[in-house]
C-alpha cells in the first residue's frame, strides 16, 4: 500500500517534468502551454500501465513454469486482444471492398469496435447454425469407453487426452462439443425470447401510442407494476412456479422460461415502443393521414412503423443482450435452460470450481472461463454494434 502511494507520487513528479519538457521542447506550443496537470498525469499513468502489461506478457513467456503459469491468463488475454484487433481490422478492410455499395459505405464509416462486433456476431451465427457439423460429439452424448473428468489441455502427462482438447465433464461428455452446441441453445433461445418480447411489447406499445386514452392508461399502469419488481427476482419467482407446473403439464421448463422472460422483458420494449410511437404520432404527417380518413392498419404499418425501425433495431440489440445475460444468470443459478441441453450458464456453474486449480495447471480453469467468456464476448459484440448505431443515429449531437 505504501509502495503504491509512493509510486503514484513519483508519477506526479514525473508528470510535472513531462509537461515542462514538452513545453520546452516545442517552444510553448499551445497544446503543452494549455495542458492541465491532470492530463499530463493521465498520460504518465497510461504509459505506466502499458509498461506493466509488456512486463507481464514477458513474464507469461518465462521458461519457469511457475512464473509462466501465474501470468498465463494475462498472456492469453493480451494475445487475444491483439488477435481480435487485427482480425477486426482485416474484416473491416474486407467489408470495405466486398459487398454491395451500401455495405461498403457502411464499413467505411465503421469504427474498429463495431467491425469487431459485426465479425463476432457473424461467427456466432455460423457456429450456431453449423453446430452439428462443427462439434465432434453430440451435446448429450456420454462417450463410451472414455472416462469422466479428463483434464483440459490434451496433455497426457497432466491427465488429458488430445482427442478431448477441453476434456470431459463429470459424466464423460465432451466439453468442446457442449461449448459449440451452447451457441445454438443459449443464443438461439435468447434470440427467440427477444423476438417474442418484441412482438408483444412492440405491438402493445404502438397500440397504446396510437389510441391513447384508457387503453394506454391500463397498459401503462400494468407495465409500471411489472417493472417495479426487479426482473431477475421476478423471473426467479415465476421460474419456481414453472418448475412445479412443467413436469405436471409435460411441457419442458425451458418453454416456460422463454415465455416468462419474454413477458417480463416486453414491459421494457413496451415503454420504448410507446415513447417512440408517441413521438411519431404527434407529427403532422400522421395528423394529415388521420384527417384523410386512413384506417388503423395503414397508420401503423405505413406511417408509424417505417419511422420507428431505427430506434427499435438498436433497442433489439440491447434487449437481446439483456435477455441473453438474464438467461445465462438463470441457468447459472440452476433454474434456466435445463439439461440435457448444453448451455453456457449451466456449464459455468458445473465447472466453476476448477478455477481454483489455475495455480497449478492453468488449463483446468479454461472450460468455465471459456463458457463465461463466450457469453461475455457475444454481449460485448452486440453492445459495440448498438453503441455505434446509436451514435450514428444521434448524428452530431456530441
Amino acid at each position, binding site marked *: 500500500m505504501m509502495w503504491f502511494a509512493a509510486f503514484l507520487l513519483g508519477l506526479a513528479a514525473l508528470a510535472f517534468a513531462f509537461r515542462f519538457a514538452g513545453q520546452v521542447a516545442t517552444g510553448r506550443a499551445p497544446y503543452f502551454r494549455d495542458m492541465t496537470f491532470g492530463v499530463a498525469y493521465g498520460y504518465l499513468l497510461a504509459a505506466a500501465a502499458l509498461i506493466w502489461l509488456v512486463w507481464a506478457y514477458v513474464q507469461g513467456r518465462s521458461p519457469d513454469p511457475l512464473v509462466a503459469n501465474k501470468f498465463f491468463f494475462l498472456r492469453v488475454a493480451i494475445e487475444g486482444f491483439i488477435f481480435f484487433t487485427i482480425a477486426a481490422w482485416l474484416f473491416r478492410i474486407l467489408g470495405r471492398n466486398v459487398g454491395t455499395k451500401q455495405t461498403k459505405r457502411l464499413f467505411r464509416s465503421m469504427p474498429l469496435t463495431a467491425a469487431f462486433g459485426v465479425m463476432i456476431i457473424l461467427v456466432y451465427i455460423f457456429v450456431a447454425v453449423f453446430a452439428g457439423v462443427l462439434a465432434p460429439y453430440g451435446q448429450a452424448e456420454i462417450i463410451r469407453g472414455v472416462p469422466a473428468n479428463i483434464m483440459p489441455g490434451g496433455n497426457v502427462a497432466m491427465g488429458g487426452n488430445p482427442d478431448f482438447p477441453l476434456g470431459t465433464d463429470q459424466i464423460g461428455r465432451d466439453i468442446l462439443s457442449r461449448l459449440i452446441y451452447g451457441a445454438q441453445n443459449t443464443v438461439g433461445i435468447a434470440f427467440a425470447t427477444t423476438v417474442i418480447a418484441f412482438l408483444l411489447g412492440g405491438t402493445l406499445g404502438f397500440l397504446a401510442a396510437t389510441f391513447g386514452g384508457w387503453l394506454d392508461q391500463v397498459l401503462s399502469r400494468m407495465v409500471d407494476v411489472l417493472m417495479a419488481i426487479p426482473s431477475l427476482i421476478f423471473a426467479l419467482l415465476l421460474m419456481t412456479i414453472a418448475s412445479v407446473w412443467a413436469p405436471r403439464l409435460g411441457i419442458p421448463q425451458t418453454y416456460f422460461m422463454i415465455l416468462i422472460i419474454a413477458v417480463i422483458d416486453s414491459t421494457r420494449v413496451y415503454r420504448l415502443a410507446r415513447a417512440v410511437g408517441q413521438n411519431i404520432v404527434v407529427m*403532422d*404527417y400522421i395528423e394529415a393521414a388521420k*384527417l384523410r*380518413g386512413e384506417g388503423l392498419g395503414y397508420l401503423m404499418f405505413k406511417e408509424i412503423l417505417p*419511422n420507428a425501425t431505427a430506434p427499435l433495431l438498436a433497442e433489439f440489440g440491447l434487449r437481446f443482450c439483456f435477455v441473453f445475460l438474464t438467461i445465462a444468470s438463470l441457468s447459472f443459478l440452476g433454474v434456466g435452460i435445463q439439461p440435457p441441453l448444453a448451455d453456457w450458464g449451466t456449464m459455468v456453474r458445473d465447472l466453476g470450481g476448477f478455477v481454483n486449480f489455475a495455480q497449478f495447471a492453468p488449463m483446468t480453469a479454461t472450460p468455465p472461463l471459456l463458457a463465461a467468456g463466450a457469453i461475455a464476448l457475444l454481449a460485448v459484440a452486440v453492445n459495440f454494434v448498438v453503441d455505434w448505431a446509436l451514435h450514428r443515429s444521434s448524428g452530431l449531437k456530441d
Partner: protein
Amino acid sequence: MTQEPLLKIRGIQIEGRSDETWTPIIKGVNLTLQRGQVMGLIGESGAGKSTLGLAAMGYTRDGVRISGGTVEFDGIDLLKASANVKRDLLGKRIAYVAQSAAASFNPAHRLIDQHIEGPVQHGLSGRKESAEDGVALYRKLRLPNPEEIGFRYPHQVSGGQLQRAMTAMAMSCRPDLIIFDEPTTALDVTTQIEVLSAIRDIVAQYNTAAIYITHDLAVVAQMADRIKVLLKGEEVETAETRTMLDAPTQQYTKSLWAVRSFERPTKPAVQTGAVPLVSVRNVDAAYGKEKVLHDVSFDMFAGRTMAVVGESGSGKSTTARCITGLLPPSAGQILFDGTALPADYRKRSKDQLRQVQMIYQMADTALNPRMSIGQIIARPVQFYLGLTGKAKRRRVDALLEQIELEPSEYFHRLPSELSGGQKQRIGIARALAAEPRFIICDEVTSALDQLVAEGILRLLARLQDELSLAYMFITHDLATVKAIADEVVVMKDGRVVEQGPKDEMFSPPHHAYTDLLLSSVPQMDPDWLSKLLAERGVDNIGDAAVNKM
C-alpha cells in the same frame, strides 16, 4: 474616421464539421466596426450570421473551427490570444445576448446573481454595488418592478422581460461591444417592440458598439447604423442603413427588398346573400377544462382568402383544429356549403374529409420521411379518387407540374433530399391531390426565408385563381396578410376581436387591439420606431399597452 476601429475582422474563414469532413460556413468575410457604431448583420438561415457573430468574440461552438483570417479587437488578436487573455475580455469588454433568453439563463440561480457574476468575477465592483447597478439597468430597460425582478428565477419571468434582463446583464460591465444574436426572433410583435426600443435606447445611452444579427429587414432598419448582407457565408454588400434601404446595388439585396412589395389586387366584395363555403358559427372549444375559444364566428367564401391573425396563444390554430374536426367544439358548429359537418373528423364521410385539406407550418414534420415524394402525393389520389397504375402516375405528374417541380426529377426523391421551400410545395401538392375546395394554411411561410416564402405565396395565389379555392390563412405576420388576404379576422385570447375586408382593416379607425397589433409590425422606414415612440410614448407600446386594455 481617423480613429482606429474597435473591431477588425479580415478574411475570416470558418468551417463546420459534418460527417467527419469540414465544410466552409464563412468564406472570407471582412468586417470593420467603429466605437459606438451598430452594425446590422442580415441574411437568410444558413448564411452564417450567428457563426460570424460568435467569431467576433473569438469563440466557436463545438464542431466549428476558424481556419483562416484575423479577428482584432482593440488591437488584440483574438485568434492568437491565450485562453486567459480572451477570458478577461469576454463579458467585460465584449458581451453577448442570445436568441433564447429562457435557455441562456441558468435555471438554478436568480437573475440578479447571474447579473453580478460578470462585474464581480472580472473584479470591477463588489456584489452590492453591481446589484444596485443591476436594478438601475433594469429600470432603464423599463422592466416592471425593477427592485424585485432580479430576485426571481428565470422561469418566473416572461420571455420579453428575460430578453431585457439579458441585455442588462450584457451591460453590467459596460462593455465596448455587444453581440445581439436575433434577440427578438422568438417574441410576439407587441413584445418585440418593447425589447427593441429598450435595447436601442441603452446602446445609444452608453455609446456601446453592437453587432445586431437578424433575418428581419424591418428590425435591422430600426437598430443599425450600417447593414451588412450575408449570403451563404459570403458578403453581398455593406452600406449605411439609409443608403442600403433606398438604393441597394446588388441583385440579391434588391430581390430581398422587393419581397415586401408583393401584393395581390383587391377582389370585389362578396355579394350579399352568397352562401359561404365554410362558416364557423359561435364555436366554443376547450382543452380539458381550460376554455380556449369563446364564441368564434366568421365566414369564408370560394375563391377568397381569409387571414386569421393574432399572437401566439390567441386561438388561431385551435380554430383550425375545430374546423378539421380534430378538436370537436364544445358549442357551435361548422357549416360546409350550408350543411353542418359532424364535429368529430372520425364521423365525417370520406367526401367531407376530402373537401377540407391542410398545409402545415413545418414541412419537415408534415411529410413522412420514409416515403418518396411520389408515394406521398399518390396516396390521396388513390385514396379519394381511386386512381391506380398509369392514371395515378399521370395525376401525380400533373400535380408536380402544378407546383412547378419537374416530375421525373422529384418523383422518387425522399423529403430529406429537398429544400425547405420544395418540401412546402409537396405539402401543397398533397393537399391539391384530394381536389378539395377549402385549404387551411397554418403559418405556411413563417419557417421559410423571405424569398422562398414569396414564391410559395405566389404559387398559392395562382392556384386559388385557377381552382377557385377558399383559403384560411393562419399567420402572425402582417406583411403576409397584406400580400395575400381578402378578408381578415383578428383574434386575441380565444375571441374574435375584429373582422372585415382587408382594406378596411388596414385603415383606421379600428379596435384598439387591432390598432396596437398593426402598429407594432416593424416597417422598413428607419424612423418608424422613433416616430411610433414619439407618437405613443414608451409606456403605450407592447405588453404594457395590452395590459391596459
